């Protein structure tokens, strides 16, 4: 089947089997390997991408379900050489170790902060509870998301003043 998706603002087309998983379209057909696979059963969240503004686990979405829709992956965070505040936050707060869950964490957090610009720690912990991390113990991931939230609010505030 012909599938057309917009990933990180760029249009892509591919001929795919109807059963092809979105994560395999992203990783293997389009070779964006920042999105990872950790469980195949929607538990670990390593494959999280943003589909039309909502975080989805791309191991449980068919590529054809993303037809004519917008996807954002970790590769879309950096804009014109400037890191996204979430990326800065994860580095500044030591929110990653092996880096395998990180792209999924970034995507979930990105979608979450878009709707919850000033979250509590508890809200952040619940928001990322569909993403498993085996290395960090989550404390610094929470701090990284808080770091980004503060930075994004600052930017939004500055933008509003203009």
């Amino acid at each position: 089947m012909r599938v057309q998706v917009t990933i990180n603002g760029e249009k892509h087309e591919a001929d795919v089997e109807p059963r092809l998983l979105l994560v395999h379209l992203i990783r293997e057909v389009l070779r964006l390997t920042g999105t990872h696979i950790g469980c195949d059963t929607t538990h670990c969240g390593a494959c999280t991408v943003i589909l039309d503004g909502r975080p989805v686990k791309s191991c449980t979405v068919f590529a054809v379900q993303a037809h004519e829709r917008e996807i954002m992956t970790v590769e879309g965070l950096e804009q014109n050489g400037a890191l996204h505040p979430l990326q800065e936050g994860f580095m500044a707060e030591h929110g990653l170790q092996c880096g395998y869950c990180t792209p999924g964490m970034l995507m979930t957090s990105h979608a979450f902060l878009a709707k919850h610009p000033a979250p509590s720690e508890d809200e952040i912990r619940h928001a990322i509870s569909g993403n498993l991390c085996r290395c960090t113990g989550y404390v610094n991931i929470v701090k990284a998301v808080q770091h980004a939230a503060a930075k994004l609010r600052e930017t939004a505030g500055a933008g509003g003043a203009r």
Partner: protein
Amino acid sequence: MTLRTSPEVGGMGHSIKRKEDPRFIRGKGTYVDDVVLPGMLYLDIVRSPHAHAKIVKIDATKAMAVPGVLAVITGQDLAKYNLHWMPTLMSDTQMVLPVEKVMYQAQEVAAVLATSRYAAADGAAVVEVEYDPLPAVVDPHKALEPGAPVLRTDKKDKKDNHIWHWEWGDRAATDRAFAEADVTVKEQIYIPRIHVASIETCGCIAHFDKVDGKLTVWMTTQAPHAIRTVFALVAGHVGLAEHKIRIISPDIGGGFGGKVPVYPGYVIAVAASVLTGKPVKWIEDRMENLQADSFARDYHITAELAGKKDGTLTALRIKTLADHGYTDAAANPSKFPAGLFHVCTGSYDLKAAHVEVDGAYTNKPPGGIAYRCSFRVTEAVHTIERMVDIMAHQLGQDPAAFRMKNFIRPEQFPYKSALGWEYDSGNYGGALQKAMDGIGYAELRREQAEKRKRGELMGIGISSFTEIVGAGPSKHFDILGLKMFDSCEIRIHPTGKAIARFGTKSQGQGHETTYAQILAEELGIPAADIQVEEGDTDTAPYGLGTYASRSTPVAGAAAAVASRKIIDKGRKIAAHLLEVAPEDLVYEPGKFSVKGSPNRSKTIQDVAFAAYTNHPQGMEAGLEAVSYYDPPNLTYPFGSYICVVDIDKGTGEVKVRRFLAIDDCGNIINPMIVQGQVHGGLTMGLAPALFEEISYDEFGNVQGGSFIDYLLPTAVETPKWETGHTVTPSPHHPLGAKGVGESATVGAPAAIANAVVDALWHLGVRHVDIPITPPKVWKLLREKGVTE
């Protein structure tokens, strides 16, 4: 610890940001499954639904009809090359693919080679295997009973399921101490089978180039060099020589011990590539990972502790049954089949101890690897910390005061334990006191007393652990004969930048950063100017790899020693440049200056340039060094953890309200990274304490074989860890460092279990096995007559 370098240089003690992060936060890491080679084939594996069965027939007809399927590989095919069995790291034997029978549920039965991942899976789904089921031996106690079905019928003359008996310590002295004791306690402690479950599963791409006869394997391995040698030894007879094998361990998505062994999938992929001359990729899925890869723990322990009326501990006696599955595929140093379990006297000055372990075969996956710990150290720590707590409660003494009384005192170091270890350094009372002050211990005890009056269940648990890491001195430590040294090779470029390569392999620990900091500390070259590489056997010096918290104690020491060799040569070059004698120079990181004339100096960068442009006559050009470091002793990190739990009487849920960890890993390389390691380790201590277990029903069906029922803690269950440290340097490590990656995993479960029992002791509860799940606690509460 005083800082010797500026933040710009970034030596030890600076929380510099990680060099690894820029690629990971952009999704630009390269993990094994990210590697794609032209013409690559895919492997999928057919697995057994039975725990024990004869293979009657494997019919590949339907599989071969699936478009894209090229071959179905069976044990018979591998047997032609004598590759159907392989040695384990403990010199037992493990099937690559079975010829006669399967020994556990999810064991590899056949492999399907195809042109795509989906075709390989389609093929695997329709390989028809006819089995003749055999009775499964699940319980290791029953496995050792007379008349139990003998599992290893492949071993001639094997008449039972007993693998080995191992014992250590002075039995007579221990028995005597028990006979003379005023008080003894005894407990059965089961430390269940668990799985490391790194978020990246295992996999490889094997690429045999038929033209130059070279095999390259990208592989999820913590020990690339050892793997290369094992491949050469095992497959030498089919023409694979060690200079024609290259193992590349790229970015690794968590290891924790699970990526030390050689799994059958790797070997099948290599065999398939050698036969076809094409690259072959094998990536296991999560269920394969949990159900078939090496497990950890599974120790059935009977422990006894003896003491005097006044609360002085005197002796420890332990008997353990170790369930190894169908083959002993532990990853221990050869000499120690039960790992370093005999560090089980812990932080206490016990005069006598004796420990026995028996290994048993059962119809379960092989293993006995670590779960983020140094060779059975968690099992040891959990046992002694539970037993000390039981004794304290039994005597009606406060568990903190009781520990203080029995600790090895600071002036006793170096301390020879009753089981023969020489502890390098420690201040156990200092760490516990800091933890008590930090958490407000006395106030918590008051709160607990008040709550108890109201019928509320609150517990305070302590764990004052001593680890044993950094294997290890070559006199005692080897794996398959390979001595457990590790290595660092440094090359200083003419412009004063450097590259350093190591025999270890980071899986998230941040070696690219911390090793650069060690070099910065020693050489004064900014960490930012130092490139660290690991994981490619064609370029890195030989080493035994990263596990058992050995990278800092062994390879970190190699980095310091190699750096000092550079400085020795650098001193001669600087003397030549300054026209003085080498002994007239003083060195501080990055600078040689003339004694008494500090203005006459040369930087390490000046020296590096001169090493290639103006080196003294008679001296070799260049500035390079290598060290293969053989540690004189192990290191003994320690700490004291205090955990506060509240137990819900209605649901049985244990809620960790607070958890304070005071760790002592000697001198600290990067405080930010150390704290991150402790956070992660604590979470992998919480996990088996409250959630994780892989169990089997009576037929050998695995329970806990997917993330549906093998529960990793999420951000919601994980407490907001509180951390702190004391610093007691290792006297024998060149940097005074000890290693920290696993301390928290080792120490945390006992703190949590002790807190739960502390909350329930007054009800008559002496012990609860981990994982302490809500159903387990709920049942216990109802048995003790507690209702909502």
